[in-house]
């Protein structure tokens, strides 16, 4: 059975109701790297928020491991584009926050057992800091002292520190300069391969989606007043060859730009 099952999901905002998503049906397998691709305002971030549980759909339901979730929790890690890190905590504090609140509540964190366990958590966090390519002297810096790329690296480490089954990333690299962006894409591919986490990655950049994803899902609207639907669902051959990308980009941009999706019948691995 699929890890994430989206059944007949419809979302509309405001009064009179303005549809955003229209009857989405998807099933996402364990270990997939899914890129949600679409133009600005097509509802891809809304879909991510629904999977996250931060918002509740009007119709339909989302099952994760066969169960509905009504609020965000530890099964799904989250890396937003902005405000990803807690500004009041150091890099180390940000990464250890997850494991600490998972194991100790507001009162038990002051017990002797918590103190020794906290040291282990800190050691593990230091290993994460090393793994995402930060220097150990950065551990005690606050987020505002780091560059945008460094902040997103820490945000990824923070999300992975609690070992979630699913990692949701919302335009996580969109605010970064191209060079840093490339590095980050390599990093997330590497982490995905190493940890086997299921990633859902929202982006409006077709090349990014093709480079990263093992599966690319394009959302688009028929008309401005209609909700977005899945117009293309594409599995990317592994590994994706550089020379294939231009053709795929052409196809996908045609798909997300025009209303009707062309049939794409190739490219299953």
């Amino acid at each position: 059975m699929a890890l994430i099952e989206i059944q007949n999901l419809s979302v509309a905002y405001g009064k009179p109701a303005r549809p955003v998503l229209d009857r989405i049906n998807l099933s996402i397998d364990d270990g997939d790297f899914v890129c949600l691709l679409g133009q600005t305002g097509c509802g891809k971030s809304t879909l991510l928020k629904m999977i996250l549980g931060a918002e509740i759909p009007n119709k339909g339901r989302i099952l994760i491991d066969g169960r509905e979730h009504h609020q965000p929790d530890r099964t799904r890690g989250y890396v937003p584009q902005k405000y990803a890190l807690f500004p009041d905590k150091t890099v180390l504090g940000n990464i250890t926050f997850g494991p600490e609140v998972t194991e100790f509540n507001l009162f038990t964190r002051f017990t002797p057992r918590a103190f020794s366990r906290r040291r282990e958590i800190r050691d593990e966090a230091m290993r994460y800091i090393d793994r995402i390519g930060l220097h150990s002297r950065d551990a005690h810096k606050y987020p505002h002292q780091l560059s945008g790329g460094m902040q997103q690296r820490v945000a990824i480490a923070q999300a992975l520190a609690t070992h979630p089954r699913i990692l949701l990333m919302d335009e996580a690299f969109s605010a970064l300069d191209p060079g840093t962006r490339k590095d980050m894409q390599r990093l997330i591919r590497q982490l995905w391969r190493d940890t086997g986490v299921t990633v859902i990655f929202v982006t409006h950049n077709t090349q990014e989606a093709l480079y990263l994803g093992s599966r690319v899902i394009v959302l688009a609207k028929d008309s401005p007043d209609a909700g977005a639907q899945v117009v293309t669902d594409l599995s990317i051959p592994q590994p994706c060859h550089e020379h294939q990308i231009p053709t795929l980009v052409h196809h996908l941009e045609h798909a997300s730009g025009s209303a009707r999706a062309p049939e794409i019948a190739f490219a299953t691995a």
Partner: protein
Amino acid sequence: MSFGFQLVHARPSRTTSLVLSWILFCLGVSLYFYTSQRRHHDNPEDRVMPTLTQMIHGMTNASTTPAEDDDSTAPDNASLRQKFFTSMLWKDTVATSRRFIYSILLLIPAVLLGLHMGLFPYVGAFWLRFILFFDKIVALSLLPILFIVFGIDELSKIMLIVIGVTPTIILDTFNLTKGVPDEQIVKAFTLGASDFDVAYRVVMRQIMPRVLNGIRLNLKAVMLFLFAGEMIASTDGLAYRIALLRRHMGMDVIIPYVLWVALLLFLVDLGMRFLNRKLHPWFQAG
């Protein structure tokens, strides 16, 4: 149109800025003593504008001898230190500080209430409308009612401050809580935090420096209500003394008292600013 010199882009030197910033002080002080001199020249008995000697004399008395209505007197051979601790100035300062500290402590529940209102929709729905209404009541207009209900002792004065200042602090904290980005709260939940972890370990820690700044801005309001209460119904305190001395035109003590209060408030504000910087090194204003 140009004036031949820059206004917005002007760059005064350090010395110029320093000199400019002290001009009004010097002007005010010299104008005072000039007028005081003139008045004493015309009428040596003038009580409205005491000279520097008179003020120093008045303050020396105030800080070494007990108030006239105070029974506890230091023995004649007491040291200067003992004299100070039984003096009028010291006792008034202690009385006012005590009330001030109580009122600041009572702002802690206000901050917590604002936090919960902003974060938990049920709590917000329950309190918000009432607090908004309460905020609009002119606290000083309640003063007679407070004296009738709570009597004229400490409680009514502290209640006046609570009623006057807490709604502002509650609403300020509420707005700050609402201003915390959703991403932060969602993120905390995905990391396994509980509702109370989010409230106290994520949101409260983030808004704390701004809350402290809000309290700093409201220190004057706290003092205003405190002084109103002391002036109308009290038997000690700095404002009580100022109001009492007004009856026999004791300007030689009133003016130093006013400056003393300003100095105390300035020190409290400075202390809170320092504390804020020490506790929240990650916080940059703006």
